């Protein structure tokens, strides 16, 4: 084949491959999710920018006000502005979600890599340990940790992180084993690469790339769990403007003041949907890249 021909074929193929199946344009759902994510990040980093009020400021005279122009999302039993509290609570949710996922993922990587790389004895041991962890429903495991170390935001984060770790470890181990036996790892061996070079340059990157997507989806899950713990009174303590705790406070008045539970719940849902949509869109893009 002459160079000219090769080039022609090449550009032909490039033109074809860029047309179908490759999502270059941003869809409506992705666009909305992107804007929401930006809003949530700004709310977490600079809540004063979007809600200048004090999330803990009590004003008994304006308690239980339904949504009005002055209080967009209404007020709670102590007259605190729910909009202000929700925005100030964003940082807890996002931070807990990200930190818990990081803990779970980090632990998962360590356990999964040990199990996948270090031979049968280690694999067996790690697997039995993971199975014990799997035997507890995730939330129950988190509850156990909190019972031992006492409630609080930090404990809740660690608890959620630990209870998501076995899932990540399992996936990493499976992925590692399948990557380890691929033809390109063999090809690297044939080229004379050492085990460490192969692990660091081929196996780990190919194992972890798909996990990145999973982690994005995992943040959403971690946020729900953290909110659940707070709702049960085991995470953030009541006056703190945390969404789960606010939901819990609103529960008592759900028949008379629906807005107290509706808006925190809405934000939990929106955050998770945002994380999920973004995770899936990254996944699709990486698959077609």
């Amino acid at each position, binding site marked *: 084949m002459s*160079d000219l021909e*090769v*080039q022609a074929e090449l550009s032909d193929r490039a033109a074809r*491959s860029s047309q179908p199946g490759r999502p270059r344009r941003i869809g409506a759902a992705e666009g909305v999710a992107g804007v929401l994510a930006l809003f949530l990040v700004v709310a977490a980093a600079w809540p004063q920018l979007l809600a200048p009020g004090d999330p803990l400021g009590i004003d008994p005279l304006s308690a239980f006000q339904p949504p009005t122009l002055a209080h967009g999302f209404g007020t709670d039993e102590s007259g605190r502005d729910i909009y202000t509290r929700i925005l100030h609570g964003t940082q807890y949710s996002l931070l807990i979600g990200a930190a818990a996922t990081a803990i779970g993922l980090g632990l998962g990587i360590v356990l999964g890599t040990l199990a996948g790389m270090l031979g049968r004895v280690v694999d067996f041991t790690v697997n039995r340990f993971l199975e014990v962890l799997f035997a507890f429903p995730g939330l129950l495991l988190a509850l156990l940790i909190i019972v031992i170390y006492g409630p609080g935001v930090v404990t809740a984060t660690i608890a959620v992180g630990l209870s998501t770790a076995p899932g990540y470890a399992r996936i990493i181990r499976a992925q590692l084993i399948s990557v380890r036996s691929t*033809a*390109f790892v063999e090809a690297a061996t*044939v080229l004379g690469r050492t085990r460490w070079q192969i692990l660091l340059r081929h196996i780990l*990157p*190919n194992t972890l790339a798909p996990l990145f997507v999973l982690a994005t989806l995992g943040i959403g899950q971690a946020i729900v769990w953290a909110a659940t713990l707070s709702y049960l009174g085991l995470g953030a303590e009541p006056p703190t403007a945390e969404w789960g705790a606010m939901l819990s406070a609103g529960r008592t008045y759900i028949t008379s003041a629906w807005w107290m539970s509706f808006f925190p719940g809405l934000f939990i849902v929106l955050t998770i949907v945002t994380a999920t949509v973004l995770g899936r869109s990254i996944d699709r893009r990486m698959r077609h890249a």
Partner: protein
Amino acid sequence: MSMTEPAAALTVRNLRVGFRADPVVRGVSFEIARGECLAIVGESGSGKSVTARSLLGLAGANARVSADRLELAGRNVLGLTDRAWRARRGKDVGLVLQDALVSLDPLRPIGREIADSLRLHTTLGAAARARRVLELLDAVGLPDPARQVQKLSGQLSGGERQRALIAAAIALDPPLLIADEPTTALDVTVQAQILALLEQITRAGTAVLLISHDLAVVSRIADRVAVMHDGLLVETGSSRQVLGSPRREQTRRMVAAIPADKPRGTRLSLTLRAADAPSPPRVPIPSAVPPASTAVLEAIGLSRSFRRPDGSRHLAVDDVSFALQRGTTLGIVGESGSGKTTTARLLLALLAPERGEVRVFGEPWSAASEKTRRGLRPSVGAIYQDALGSFDPRWSVAEILTDALGLLQRRRAPLTTARLVTLLDEVGLAAAVLPRRPLELSGGQRQRVGIARALAARPEILICDEPVSSLDVSVQAQVLDLLDDLQRERGLSLIFISHDLGVVQHVSDEIAVMRAGCLVESGPAARVFAAPQHPYSMQLLAAVPRLSA
């Protein structure tokens, strides 16, 4: 062929198929009479499969199909609704696809699969259907049909699956059978059997449309051959005429690409310049490397077994010995399951032999530790069948080759790029492929990148495991020529493993025939091909597709 005879099983007049703005089939006309076999031959992307699918109304939802005439058994089928097509498929036209493993439902016994079309299109009762299925399986030559009907497709061999698929396609005795690459995935001996079966079906009065990229394969049974190129039929005629005295350049190129019976050193791929030449220049190029007596790679009594799921041992390679002489090619040929790939893995020391050893340049290779071996690894390169799978999917061609050159990717100096371009130039690729990932390249280009990677470390020995098996015949010709050139320029010693005896014959100085893990025959290629000693070698040789006059 008479134009007006109504008995034509299929009439296609000016068929055009396009996807979006791309015309894939650009005005194709042909017809097939009953009892005739027409082969449409072309490279991948020539539009032959799309043509076949359009005849079944399966071109796809986004395809635009138009034609002046499109008649199955004398009845127009252009613009039929899906519902009307369903009534026709199976009854008026049957389809046999390349990969029977994918075409058959893995969870249903093949008897049920074959009975499906009988259930949908006839009023036969269950008992009558069961009888008909047995008849069909018997007709396609599946031994012991009564037992086979109960089997799942995964429990059958490739050839048996293909037979079952053909049985399903002819269940309703359709006037036309379309076979799209029906033998591409099969071993040569099985391929010969399936071709004989298709020929028998043709003789029984069915019109057969055979789609293939391999001229030699279709020449065995096709009455007429149509060569397709870029969405057009460039040449149509009797098999003898098209293969014997091809008129068009595309056809000549395909004929020249067939490796069987071409002496070693003959170029298979014709360059574009040869387009005007009256006949393809087939000059045997004398081997520049004199045969030396030094063995660079030796296998001494290699054995290796694997544990089957039920715990018993399967001896994949059994006491295999051979030696590769410097600057020559040793061809290892055998069918699937003969232990070829296990041998390749043993030679590459990716797998340790249970008995015997591999020596490289007289030094211990399989017996050495990986640490010692690593120093010698650059001298032993490998080329794989699945080139795509052998590249890290995250890496571009530039990254793959930079890594193979042993250079750090972070310091991509202009000097590195120059070396990459030189390397690509050696395998006939343009620098434009550097930023691309292998996924975006064609099969031939991928294999060239694979060869470039193997060459980067300046190896002396190259172990090629089915390097051209997944390529079109014409691309295969280019890759074989490239390997030949490189061997002469660099004095490479090659182990060439293939199931295709024609290819092995063309490239090898020495040949080793493997069967069920054992080496049944070995010796100089000319001797083995002229006078095979072992009955299995004779059987293999007889099955090689070649252009018979």
